[in-house]
């Protein structure tokens, strides 16, 4: 699995299709079923079906980890917590409300003002002695909070740990409302960030699993459900 970044909108998705097919030395006719997911899913013409990223993340995660019962997915634009029943099916979910606080975009903005790549945040958070308190929900206000904390002499490490805690506490609120059932798995891009993961484990008092491929779980789920659709029809291309 590989992550390709191709911008936003359906043009990005089309470009990715092209790249993937080329790499796999396939053409469009070799593909029986294209499942679209994510925010542009309804507008992607080449798709034969569409499935929400909620179901896709659930499918992807459960394919690899069937014993998971709670999935925390923090992506770029939203944060969601999914509850999985004993049959391995999503039975409820909760998403962030009001704004982008507690999402990957919040971390992007913070990394930007700290002038460091986003994957640097994890390493620096580990060095924190006493995490700073970033209490503002609003991303823009939190930005000014970070600047003023740094201006008053707070260490960058403590501020970064505070930023991770702030994301974790927003998402932990959602998770508690859905009800935590072990095992807990974290998918989505923010799963790569150990600072947020550890802060979440502390808040929720449960171990949280993740994988290097956490960010790809949605795509994996979409591929699995496309496969299921084709199997249902009983015509698989050789």
């Amino acid at each position: 699995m590989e992550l390709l970044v191709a911008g936003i909108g359906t043009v990005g998705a089309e470009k990715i299709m092209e790249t993937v097919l080329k790499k796999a030395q396939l053409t469009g006719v070799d593909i029986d079923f294209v499942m679209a997911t994510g925010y542009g899913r309804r507008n992607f013409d080449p798709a034969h079906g569409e499935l929400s990223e909620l179901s896709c993340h659930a499918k992807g995660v459960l394919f690899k980890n069937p014993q998971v019962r709670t999935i925390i997915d923090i992506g770029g634009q939203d944060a969601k917590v999914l509850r999985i029943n004993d049959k391995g099916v999503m039975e409820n979910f909760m998403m962030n409300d009001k704004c982008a606080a507690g999402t990957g975009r919040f971390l992007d903005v913070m990394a930007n003002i700290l002038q460091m790549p986003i994957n640097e945040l994890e390493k620096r958070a580990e060095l924190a002695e006493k995490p700073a308190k970033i209490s503002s929900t609003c991303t823009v206000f939190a930005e000014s909070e970070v600047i003023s904390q740094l201006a008053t002499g707070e260490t960058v490490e403590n501020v970064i740990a505070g930023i991770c805690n702030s994301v974790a506490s927003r998402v932990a609120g959602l998770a508690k409302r859905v009800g935590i059932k072990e095992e807990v798995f974290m998918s989505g891009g923010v799963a790569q960030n150990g600072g947020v993961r550890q802060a979440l484990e502390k808040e929720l008092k449960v171990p949280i699993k993740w994988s290097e491929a956490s960010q790809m779980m949605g795509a994996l789920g979409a591929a699995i459900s496309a496969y299921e659709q084709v199997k249902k029809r009983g015509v698989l291309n050789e």
Partner: protein
Amino acid sequence: MSNEVKKKSPPDPNSAKFKLGKIATDAYVDAQAAKDRGEMVGWCSSNFPVEIPETLGLAVCYPENQAAGIAARGGGERLCNISEDDGYSNDICAYARINLAYAKIKDTPEQNMPEPDFLLCCNNICNCMIKWYENLAKDLNIPMIIIDIPFNPDYEVSDAQVAYVKAQFMEAIKQLEELTGKKWTEEKFKEVMEYSGRTSRAWLAATSEAKHTPSPFNGFDLLNHMAVMVTARGKKEAAEAMEVLHKEYLENVETGNSTFRAEEKHRIMFEGIACWPYLRATSTGLKSRGINMVTTIYADAFGFIYDDFDGMVKAYCNVPNAMNLEHARDKRVKLIKDNHVEGLLVHTNRSCKLWSGFMAEMSRQISEECDIPHVAFDGDQADPRNFSEAQYETRVQGLTEIMESKKGGC
């Protein structure tokens, strides 16, 4: 699959839709006519006992109803901005912001209503109402009559609460008699009570037809028809129109028709006030997935059935926003069970703090008791700036997929 009911054009004047629409429109026309005749007219909050002005023969308009109309026709943001420029916080209910702006500008292309000579306010719906009406009274320099019906923390309405509220009803009648010169008669009250009972019974009966699968109606119909339940329950025409509505739904059950013009694949309950600026987006998001919103708490809330003055007082103490969480939950659980609801869609309405506030815990309890998924989306009844269609779509699709998988699909 339900057969489609063909769109009738021009509208059939004998249809419930036509009759109910006419009652809602006439309310504004009649109030303006009364004003033109030199009579005093009022502005009235939606859960103020409509029986009082109706019995006294006073024309009143409902600012919440007008604000919903303005928002549905695209004027919400414009009027909210006027109030905000005057210093009202963006956090205040958008109905209040729209109406306070209207009280200032007095003219909108979307929906006008006559200037008030008095205000009738009741806080059984929320306390924002009190400050909103106080400001109106001050700005327009007119009297405000208030009935205080506090939130009831107990399951049942106590005799003490009835006594407290009844004394205020009596006082409000007295104040209005003195102010307007109109007279309360028991005979007229009886007549109003009778019509109100007939209208309510027909409404309850019509909405309960959703127990059939497929439902004979699209639940979005209720959001429109309820305007009559709020403003005109005590009128003869309202009783008659609601009875026609029930008859039409019964006919639909018999013939397999429905005003839901798609295959009914899933049945949900919608919680909260409609997102008026995005009515089309929110209803299409459901319909395109074969989801019929078969019921809402309005189905129960406007069943004002009582036999005497005390019964009426008690009914007004028992409106949805004034009752405790357990009572409110049980009413919804009943609607869900009676109407075979498979999912709950909650509008976290940024305007309505009270209603949205208790929904988080209530939906959790409902979901557990009825074993159905519940999903919430952010929005606003009248301020278009608090809604994102893409966010709504994702949540509705997630809900659909859970309902599908529970049925063994997907």
